[in-house]
């Protein structure tokens, strides 16, 4: 199956991807690095996914490490009983004394007794469950039969041997896509894919309404009922830059991808919306009239931080896959200088529209060799380094300012009205530096 590869060839007659403008792709070299990686695994994404999908439960089948990761990575524990848990494998499960299938059924039953309102139940595999080849796909099928549609079971991998932390969401959404109902509708409909905060979702909804773009749905939706339908007239617009697998699944189901920069910053959001307006044939003046006020507001908000960020340099360690769009935003809208931009993996299909907007001299790295990369950070001495939680304080102690990448997942940063907040996230460490005397 090579739909993915052909879909993005503009010359291909059966091109399913819509390109807004098609400038020639700047060939920025991507340096490969292999070695120790310092990125969390896909289980981490459960922290935001379980808040977003309000009638879903996430059961990780894994080890104590997996349970500990989720609770530690959340940083703050969630007060209400969370809609996730780990079924921790024990010696007797590994020795085959306890039948893992029975055990899973028992644990699922216990969860559903406590939480009878769950509609979607994700069985999430981990490194240990994958290494012992526990087939959660089978379990999902079996449980679907047992619960006969009252609860829908899906499975996906959040393991560290397969996924980095945002890839967990990609796999989760992919598993949802496979179950989405079909639509025969002849009308164009739009799926916005990628978890965004409810408040941002509502803002986008309003803008699309004003533009006259109807049939907009979000993946993931807040609950099962609102999950999108997909068909031949479905267009996909990505709100997050890490959804390669989800996108390819949607394309297989007949949807078309709208290539656009990601909605970070005023410009990013503008181009993101414009790409839809083009597909929907919205007249330019109407587009302008809807967009002009929030756009002006976004630009105004940005001015508060531009002087703090302009001329400052920044390095991204590979982590969330948000690195490239954020680097674009910071370089173009905040005039920051990009040192190294690292990504865990490089998915050209998804990131294509961003690549033309990056400065040609940017250093892109794919993969990681942690200690070597930290050596480069020490040498480059960027004014700001975006990195994982484990590394931030040690870098601060070496007098390097940092921003935690995971905060970018927990904070509403997309859209016009968050452009200022996004810039502020990066400005804050610098502002603090300028305030502290000792």
């Amino acid at each position, binding site marked *: 199956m090579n739909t993915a590869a052909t879909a993005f060839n503009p010359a291909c007659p059966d091109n399913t991807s819509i390109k807004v403008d098609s400038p020639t792709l700047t060939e920025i070299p991507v340096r490969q690095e292999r070695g120790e*990686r310092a990125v969390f*695994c896909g289980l981490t994404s459960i922290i935001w996914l379980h808040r977003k999908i309000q009638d879903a439960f996430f059961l990780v089948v894994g*080890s104590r490490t997996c*349970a500990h990761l989720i609770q530690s990575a959340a940083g703050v*524990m969630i007060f209400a009983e969370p809609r996730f848990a780990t079924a921790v494998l024990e010696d007797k499960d590994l020795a085959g004394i306890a039948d893992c299938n029975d055990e899973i059924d028992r644990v699922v039953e216990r969860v559903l007794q406590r939480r009878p309102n769950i509609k979607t139940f994700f069985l999430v595999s981990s490194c240990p469950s994958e290494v012992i080849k526990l087939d959660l796909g089978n379990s999902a099928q079996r449980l679907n039969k047992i619960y006969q549609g009252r609860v829908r079971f899906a499975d996906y991998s959040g*393991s560290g041997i397969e996924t980095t932390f945002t890839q967990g969401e990609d796999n989760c959404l992919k598993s949802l896509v496979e179950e989405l109902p079909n639509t025969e509708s002849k009308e164009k409909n739009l799926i916005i894919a990628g978890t965004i905060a409810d408040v941002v979702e509502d803002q986008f909804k309003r803008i699309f309404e004003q533009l006259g773009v109807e049939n907009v749905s979000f993946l993931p939706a807040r609950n099962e009922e609102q999950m999108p339908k997909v068909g031949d007239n479905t267009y996909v617009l990505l709100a997050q830059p890490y959804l390669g697998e989800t996108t390819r699944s949607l394309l297989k189901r007949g949807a078309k991808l709208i290539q656009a920069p990601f909605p970070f910053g005023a410009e990013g959001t503008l181009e993101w919306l414009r790409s839809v307006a083009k597909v929907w044939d919205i007249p330019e003046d109407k587009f302008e009239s809807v967009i002009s006020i929030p756009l002006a507001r976004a630009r105004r908000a940005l001015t508060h931080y531009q002087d703090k960020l302009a001329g400052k340099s920044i390095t991204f360690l590979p982590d969330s896959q948000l690195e490239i769009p954020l680097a674009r935003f910071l370089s173009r809208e905040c005039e920051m200088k990009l040192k190294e931009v690292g990504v865990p993996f490089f998915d050209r299909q998804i990131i294509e529209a961003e690549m033309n907007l990056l400065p040609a001299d940017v250093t892109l790295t794919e993969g990681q060799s942690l200690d070597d990369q930290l050596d480069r950070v020490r040498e480059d001495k960027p004014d700001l380094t975006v990195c994982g*939680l484990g590394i931030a304080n*040690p870098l601060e102690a070496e007098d390097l300012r940092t921003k935690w990448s995971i905060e970018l997942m927990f904070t509403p940063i997309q859209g016009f009205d968050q452009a200022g907040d996004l810039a502020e996230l990066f400005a804050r460490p610098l502002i603090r530096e300028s305030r502290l005397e000792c």
Partner: protein
Amino acid sequence: MQLTVWTYEGPPHVGAMRVATSLKDVHFLLHAPQGDTYADLLFTMIERQNKRPPVTYTTFQARDLGSDTAKLVTDAIQKTYQRFKPDVMLVGDSCTAELLQDQPGTLAEGAGLPVPVVPLELSAYSRKENWGASETFYHLVRALLIHQKEQSGDKEEGIDKLEFKKPKANLLGPSVLGFRCRDDVVEVTSLLRAIGVEVNVIAPLNASPEDLLRIPEADFNICLYPEIAATTCAWLERTFKQPYVKTIPIGVGATADFLREVGQLAGIDVEEYIQNNSSRLPWYSKSVDSTYLTGKRVFIFADATHATAAARIAKFELGFDVVGIGSYSREQARDVRKVAKELSLDALITDDHLEVEKAISELRPELVLGTQMERHIAKRLGVACAVISTPAHVQDYPARYSPQMGFEGANVIFDSWVHPLMMGLEEHLLGMFREDFEFNDSAAPSHLAAEGTLSNQPEEDIAKNTNQEIVWDLEAERELRKIPFFVRGKARRNTEKFALDSGLDSISLDTLYEAKAHFSR
């Protein structure tokens, strides 16, 4: 499979990381997938360590599984040694790597490194963090000292030479991510110095392998945290005839007992010192204001060391009623059970926080002494809480000096346990001005202003009839509202129980006061 939402302890390799990170010049190579690198943040975020833990992860991926993960380990061993040049290398598996059976320890031993390699077996599917720390510390100490065993002749006379040199003790057990270890070590060191005992080695916290080699030079050991050091202390006792002090100096009484036990091993009379030095806790407990502490119902859940210590302080030094006690430390469960028995209680030994939550909501204590898990539970239930043990959060690693051990530790404990409670005067004023509209139930006492208003949840609970069969008449209900809110729940429950026991199906004003008389102590 065990259904787990929050866990008290991490996996055993996190315990190994705690030991490695406590030490100097030691590096830990952990065969683990990339996601396991989250553990760094425990050290750098929760305890605000300014360096990365000395841990290198092999971060194997699925695509490596088909080929050769062992090769990955072999390469990592060389690279890691070259980069960090540690004096000792620890090598172990995370849970996933344990399943691969690459034997990284054996590979490392065969790698021809010029430094000692200590392989760790961490049993990820049956054991947990503290056990992992204990095993790591034990295997490291053993690996470094086993050769000295042959050379060490009889050191029977060690302690007899007191006239010439001060007795020396090792402090074993303090580690990073332990509860207030940083300050406990300072406090205990100064206590020992005051009675004329010299501290020889503190480990693992800030010790280098060279320091560990000097452990046998001490006359005896002090096991400060049995969760981490008991195995090592027992081995040192067998191997080097070093006896060890078992009393944990948390609380006034325990600190005195500790000094006596040290005195006995060191041949020092400590009574005079104990007479002249103590904490402010006993006087504070006796002061008028503390009348209001008497009989407060407390629930304790912590690691074994802190749970058992807390029980003694709560009961004998503050005059509380301990209504429940438990621990997640299965390895030390026996100690907790023993203390529970003395209190005529059944110890709750579990690592399921839902069970703990159930116990707390059933017992309705007025104060919970626990971990960050219990802080959440208590907050939800609207009960006061103080954190006394790991797992703890960033705010439990305070900037100020705040030991738990020794006489100063007792001062700190008095303050931090009493702080979340109503102070005596406040309790009174609240009763007196209850009907003042500005002084209503939902206003938090002033010293708790930072914590915001008190949770409304118990209010809602209380407002609801807990028992469907019993009806409160209007007058009784109104009277109940006049009872201060922090005892209102208890009053309601007691009255309903009284009514049920007396075969009543409704509660009148009289029933309320009869119940009050019935239950008054």
